């Protein structure tokens, strides 16, 4: 069963890892609806 297709996704990215918009692009390519995308910053 698919994890992402047709699901609602929340993307919590990291400024020094993988940022939110990059995660969003991947999730959308898997058929997910990205409802919220954010990028955290520890520095």
């Amino acid at each position, binding site marked *: 069963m698919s994890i992402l297709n047709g699901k609602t996704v929340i993307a919590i990215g990291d400024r020094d890892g993988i940022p939110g918009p990059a995660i969003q692009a991947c999730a959308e390519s898997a058929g997910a609806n990205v409802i*919220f995308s954010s990028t955290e910053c520890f520095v």
Partner: protein
Amino acid sequence: MDLENQRRVKEFAEQLGPENVVVLIGASEGSASALAAETVTAGDPTYAGPLTGVSLGLQVYHVCEDAVKAEFDEAIYEDQVSMMEMVIDLDDIVEQMESIRSQFTKY
């Protein structure tokens, strides 16, 4: 996890039903991945944010884990994320994510 992000996660889970929401994270380290994953499953372990004591049990993956990676368009993943696999310690991240999921994910 940022307090505002916790608030949004909580809102969406309540609004849409926790079984319908998947959280994807992009942290650079195993410990930070586990912290974010724990926050959206068992609750905020730092006792600071709106998810303190709230066990949403959401499905949560790191964006580089095989299970979700297999579902992405290969070219988009290649463009957006793949380079970071050479930068992060993926084995550690996967191990920590699996541990959190096995303990706290309900869906």
